[in-house]
């Protein structure tokens, strides 16, 4: 470790911007971004499954509230949602005295809430589309086997729908990563926040932002690779058969 640091130091000796200190800012920013995006995606994914099923429900009192939710969160910019959740809650009288303030005081949780609600709305619609496009034949076959609607949903529709939703969901993950760049407006030191900090210190927009763009590219590459791998595995039955 020690020798690695000294090696890094000699490598960095020639430039004034990318010192160990600024690199550690980028490192901390990377951690924050990954945490924020990963957590909001996981929670959003878990919430989206029942919401997507409910969205296709026959009962109006289940269907319409979910539609209203996805409509609002897909129909307004994420930046506005973040502002409302971070700055808006402050204007609720006496909120500082409630337990809610403990979680809302720190910028991380409001950002996590905004990102989660946003990605859950998009994911819900992605899954709903996939569920809706399940081929009639599969459902009829399930019914012919005597499966109840509940069992059909669990055994037939959901597994095939989620496989079909995979490419679209991979896109959503990438969008979410890029959308997280706005976290720095509520003072979170994410990757973009780190870049803005370095930019502000050295007035070097190209260096600061190109470097952070490269990190985003690497992250996107990892996500692409992961989903490519997953698709290959889960959608193998849809690949053209050769040989």
């Amino acid at each position, binding site marked *: 470790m020690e020798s690695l640091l000294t090696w890094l130091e000699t490598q960095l000796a020639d430039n004034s911007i990318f010192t160990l200190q600024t690199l550690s800012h980028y490192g901390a920013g990377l951690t924050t971004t990954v945490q924020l995006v990963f957590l909001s995606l996981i929670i959003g994914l878990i919430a989206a499954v029942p919401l997507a099923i409910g969205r296709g429900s026959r009962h109006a009192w289940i269907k319409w509230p979910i539609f209203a939710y996805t409509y609002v969160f897909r129909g307004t910019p994420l930046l506005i949602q973040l502002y409302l959740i971070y*700055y808006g809650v*402050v204007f609720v009288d006496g909120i500082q005295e409630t337990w809610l303030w403990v979680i809302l005081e720190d910028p991380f949780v409001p950002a996590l809430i905004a990102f989660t609600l946003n990605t859950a709305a998009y994911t819900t619609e992605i899954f709903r589309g996939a569920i809706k496009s399940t081929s009639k034949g599969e459902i009829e076959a399930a019914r012919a086997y005597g499966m109840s609607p509940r069992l059909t949903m669990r055994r037939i529709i959901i597994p095939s729908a989620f496989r079909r939703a995979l490419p679209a969901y991979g896109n959503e993950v990438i969008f979410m990563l890029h959308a997280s760049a706005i976290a720095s*407006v509520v*003072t979170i030191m994410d990757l973009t926040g780190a870049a803005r900090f370095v930019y502000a210190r050295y007035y070097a927009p190209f260096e600061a932002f190109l470097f952070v763009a490269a990190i985003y590219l690497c992250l996107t590459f990892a996500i692409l690779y992961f989903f490519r791998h997953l698709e290959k595995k889960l959608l193998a039955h849809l690949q053209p058969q050769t040989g």
Partner: protein
Amino acid sequence: MRSTTLTLAAVLAAGFSISFVSSSAMARDYDEVRLGADVPYEPFMYREADGELTGFEIELGNAVCEHLDIKCTWVEQDWDGIIPGLMARKYDAIMSSMAITDERAERVLFSEPYYTTPSAWITTREHDIDIDDKSSLEDLTVGVQRATLQDDYVTEMYGDTVEIRRYTGANEVVNDLRSGRLDITFMDYPIAEATIDIDSEGSDFKRISDFIKKPEEIFGRGVGMAFRQRDEALAEQFNEGLEALKDDGTYDEIMNRYFDYDVSL
């Protein structure tokens, strides 16, 4: 090779500047100049209820232009992109409370400073903080406006003692100071005075430090107009204009309309 080119460039630049300066008195190449400003930034630049642009810098800028017989228009630009905007020729000069620093001077050409303002630590009534005792600041959350000198000052002097949160605008800092997310803020005093009610009877906020203007390495020489490096003749014209306004009392007249303390240098 690199150093030779640089030397050559420096010699050329010096040569040009001499020739420009000597001819600037009669040069009237600029009959129209666009000034970039990050509005609003009270009381330096803001809009009246009827949408009219006004403020200390707006009035000062207009007065200089009038004196120089130049037609000036104002171009609004967010602070984050104000230097790139100058380079991209969206406007010809920045007159937007930009403090003169070495880092910035590498990219832009500054006029002589035309004002300076103090900064101060501000906190809420319920806090009992002794600013001279660094340990009383420990574990506090400090809010600053991102990419400002106040940000630099706090980062440099207190970076290891306090938690620093960086905001896009002064309003956001005040918002979070009010909400309790922040314990204290270090602000440009005129901005603070314009955004929050400080030290008056029954106000929630108090100033707990002297007016801070030093060290010069951080707070710099004051605020100047910024030009593109090659526009030396234009910078020289504005220097003369500003000097003339100071001499004939116009500067003081405008200043007294906006401040109850002296911002001149």
